[in-house]
């Protein structure tokens, strides 16, 4: 069991205890000279909802893609159920990935396929379909779970942003995965639609009991769905614990982020960037 210990503005050091369904061991990811993840160690607990928070560009999406090895680490190791997976070939990795469901930020539905075809895509790839009636019922059941029964023949272009995410979620759970990864599930949605997605995450976790990892910068969502919250900053884990631990965390970066406060450095940059009247200057002949 993880132990949460208090510190004084220092990073939490207990993010990895070696026990979990997915484990990252000393993972570093570089793109050129840019270090996005810096020696991150983390164990995702089975059957729990782990939320990864952090400012834009801090490496949240890169982290979640490492959990399913859509990106391979520059250094370090990734384990799924005690099996190292970051060094597997694509064929072996594809078998491992059937245990995961991934909800992408924009949904990533296939434009050329209908809602039904999108949902049966993973089933078609991995199962031999003999009874199409049964598959239709399965699609209906999956869509009912996300509240979209009746949308079977729609195409992604005819759906709203929230509906697309819900269809993508139905597709992500098509193979009854053990782990569901959500990449910014509420981004771009109004507060009510965002709450619908939060409720769906909770409902699926409750009914299916699977392991859930959510990447978000929406603190309302994080507090609502999380059993455990991890904060990333500059590619490192700076906080790890339950919602109360994060609320009371002494690290100034954590407090700044969860309260949505601009830093003194950012304010200084804004003050030095010139006056509004300077920014409003236009050439004389501009009409």
């Amino acid at each position: 069991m993880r132990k949460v210990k208090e510190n004084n503005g220092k990073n939490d050091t207990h993010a990895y205890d070696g026990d979990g369904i997915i484990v990252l061991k000393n993972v570093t990811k570089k793109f050129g000279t840019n270090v996005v993840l810096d020696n991150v160690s983390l164990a995702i607990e089975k059957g729990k909802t782990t939320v990864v928070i952090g400012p834009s560009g801090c490496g949240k999406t890169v982290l979640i893609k490492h959990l399913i090895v859509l990106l391979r680490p520059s250094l370090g190791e990734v384990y799924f159920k005690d099996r190292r997976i970051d060094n597997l070939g694509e064929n072996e990795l594809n078998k491992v990935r059937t245990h995961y469901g991934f909800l992408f930020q924009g949904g990533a539905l296939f434009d050329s396929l209908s809602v039904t075809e999108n949902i049966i895509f993973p089933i078609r790839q991995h199962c031999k379909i003999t009874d199409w009636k049964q598959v239709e019922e399965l699609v209906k059941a999956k869509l009912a779970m996300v509240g979209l029964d009746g949308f079977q023949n729609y195409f992604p272009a005819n759906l709203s942003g929230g509906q697309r995410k819900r269809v993508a979620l139905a597709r992500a759970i098509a193979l009854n995965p053990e782990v569901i990864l959500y990449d910014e599930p509420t981004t771009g949605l109004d507060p009510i639609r965002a709450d619908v997605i939060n409720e769906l995450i909770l409902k699926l976790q409750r009914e299916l009991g699977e392991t859930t990892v959510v990447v978000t910068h929406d603190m309302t969502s994080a507090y609502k769905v999380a059993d455990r919250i991890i904060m990333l900053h500059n590619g490192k884990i700076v906080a790890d614990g339950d919602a109360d631990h994060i609320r009371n965390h002494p690290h100034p970066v954590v407090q700044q982020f969860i309260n949505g406060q601009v830093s003194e450095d950012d304010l200084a940059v804004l003050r030095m960037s010139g006056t509004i009247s300077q920014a409003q200057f236009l050439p004389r002949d501009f009409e």
Partner: protein
Amino acid sequence: MIGTVGATTIGGVNNIGRFARFVLQSVIASLRSCVRPHAYPLIWTQMNIIGVRSVPVVMVTGAFVGMTLAVQAYGQLAGMGLEEHLGVLINIAVVKELGPVLAAVMLAGRVGGALTAELGTMNVTEQIDAVRSMGTDPIRYLVAPRVLACLLLTPCLIIYADLMGIVGGYFVSVVQLGINNRAYWSFSAFGVELWDVGVGIVKGFFFGVAIAAISCYKGFTCREGAQGVGQACTEAFVASFISILALDYALVVITNAIYDTFWPLKSLV
């Protein structure tokens, strides 16, 4: 300066390596798709999009090639009293070179651009990552059907281009310019061999694979944003065009060498 040259060279070699690996993976995935009946519907769909819908544009290209050749060559041959040999010149040029090359260039523009734009958009909207996240190899699902469709249908489209080139050349030569019909065809039959037609069609297999592989690779590696997709489409067309010309040159050298080996006297005649 030296650093820049070095970095550019290393970048170029890396790109060639990545492309070679992509082609190898595509070839393996295509061979596997051939023996998997459940992949046939995907190949069939791509054959319809890539092949069937390209027929009109390829036929028009072929017809104009034949017609233009007739108009251009007539003046020179008529000056020497050899206008009845116009059929040989047009039909050899069409079936061996211009038909295959121009049909392939047309396909590189029409099909290659569409493939790059489609896969590039799928790449930037994370649809390719979505395919991978569901445990499916995107090269098997997205690239192999397109490569097979191009491989199988480019030669067929070249046959259409050849036929229309021959018809176009005949129309201008015989109907418009008044060359004797019988002489036109008999000289053509004497000058054009099955080998010439075969060489043109065989080129289609190579052109088809080159167009599909380059276009899919550019789509898979395109940068984010509208500009990234647009640039990938341009690069795909330019690379396909140059590959078609380079492959054409290489195939001409090889096929001529084969012909000279098996029919040494014929080549002298």
